């Protein structure tokens, strides 16, 4: 019987890494749209300010999960292109670095001064980087996609676990990550109504509908393709089709975490779809919706990390 080696620290890390990737993705997207409509600046700013923290926390959890956490630097003495974990740890460090510089570029002058004074760093670091925002966003964009994809590749590249061994896992994790980034912003904007502008919520809803739909149409082929695949894959799917993860997958992930938020978002945006009217934007519904999306993203990673390790060739 296979043993569960990767537990909740890894689940949390995969979720948090994806969350940061999603936040950066939304920020870069909003920065691009800001050229036409300055209202998007606030969205780009908030996501930029939030982006570095989940991935920093997640990476710390990842290091804590190591048997010898103080040896984590050994990861950076090697680059092994065949090991998804090696590629991923380099991606994580570079991505976190970029998100931090990007955050710096969004800080106003007085915040930077105060921060440097408190951290006892030389004031010469206090540079205005706002003109570099588009460049940083362009550099960070592929890294954010890379981090989101890599969390899935980490699992998908393992031939020994039939439940994981498909590229669809990476795509599922990618769209789930980007969608959870949207959800955090919906949550933040809805909890502080004075920040709210209908156009931004509408943009986030539309983007999230797009991402959730894509995710759904990857979950579906994952199931169908798995059923049409070799026996070991069919056996492994039993874990979610009639096994210990059935309720978690169908009810908690697919139902509450994917389809219900999709319905809420479609319901909210319907008036804006067919006429020039504003979206409904019920704040409580928006908070619920964002919480469900985040919950679904977390459940997805929980199910895959645990069920995958149980699956094996018999």
């Amino acid at each position, binding site marked *: 019987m296979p043993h569960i080696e990767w537990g909740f620290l890894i689940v949390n890390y995969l979720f948090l890494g994806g969350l940061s990737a999603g936040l950066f993705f939304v920020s870069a997207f909003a920065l691009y749209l800001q050229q036409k409509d300055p209202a998007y600046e606030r969205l780009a700013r908030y996501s930029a300010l939030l982006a570095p923290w989940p991935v920093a926390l997640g990476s710390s959890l990842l290091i804590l999960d190591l048997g010898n956490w103080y*040896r984590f630097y050994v990861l950076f003495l090697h680059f092994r292109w065949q090991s*998804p*974990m090696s590629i991923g*740890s380099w991606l994580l460090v570079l991505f976190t670095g970029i998100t931090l510089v990007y955050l710096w570029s969004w800080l106003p002058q007085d915040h930077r001064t105060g921060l440097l004074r408190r951290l006892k760093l030389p004031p010469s670091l206090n540079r205005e980087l706002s003109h570099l925002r588009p460049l940083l966003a362009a550099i960070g964009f592929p890294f954010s996609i890379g981090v989101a994809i890599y969390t899935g590749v980490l699992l998908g590249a393992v031939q*020994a676990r039939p439940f994981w061994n498909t590229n669809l896992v990476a795509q599922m994790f990618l769209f789930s990550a980007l969608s959870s980034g949207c959800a955090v912003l919906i949550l933040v904007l809805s909890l502080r109504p004075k920040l709210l502008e209908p156009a931004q919520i509408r943009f986030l809803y539309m983007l999230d509908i797009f991402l959730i739909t894509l995710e759904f149409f990857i979950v579906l082929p994952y199931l169908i393709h798995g059923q049409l695949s*070799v026996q070991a894959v069919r056996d492994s799917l039993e874990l979610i089709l009639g096994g210990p993860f059935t309720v978690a997958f169908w009810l908690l992930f697919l139902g509450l975490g994917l389809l219900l938020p999709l319905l809420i978002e479609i319901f909210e945006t319907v008036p804006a779809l067919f006429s020039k009217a504003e979206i409904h934007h019920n704040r409580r519904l928006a908070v619920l919706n964002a919480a469900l999306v985040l919950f679904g993203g977390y459940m997805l990673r929980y199910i895959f990390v645990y069920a995958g390790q149980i699956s094996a060739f018999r």
Partner: protein
Amino acid sequence: MSQKRYILVIDSRKCINCKACIVACRAENRVPLGHSRDRINEERRGSFPVLLATFEPEQCHHCENPSCVRVCPTGASHRRDDGIVLVTDDTCIGCRYCMVSCPYNARFFREDRGVVEKCSLCSHRLDRGELPACVQTCPSKVRACGDIADPESEVSRLLDKREYRVKNPQTGNAPQIYYLL
């Protein structure tokens, strides 16, 4: 002299489940209690009086194309030129990706040292010209270990004249434990 290639040949039908191999390995390699580098898979079929019990010794398959080595982010898991797959203690960070990637569940995590451990095919003994502890100790001569590159070796002769199988070849790992049929 040509390059050696060590493999393990196992005649499961001779196995009596005495577990001397596990004890010998524990003594030779100071394997902590609660873990073992080798195991015996038991299978029982049928009901009285028509019964069948099979015992199948298993440990690291020292794969020719080992997935543990591929996924290791630091290179701690490596494969020697003579085919033995090993873990270097000093560079193992304990991420356990190799354990997740091993189709044979041949590895375990050593909590006391925070590293992953596995069968080394007693490489230290082979290097001295001795047999691995499990092979040496087996009372019913289930196991043979030797150089497949040498046509005169015991393992080569066994594989020449007997039918054999390997476990789960579909993983693409090219495992190097040969089970005689």
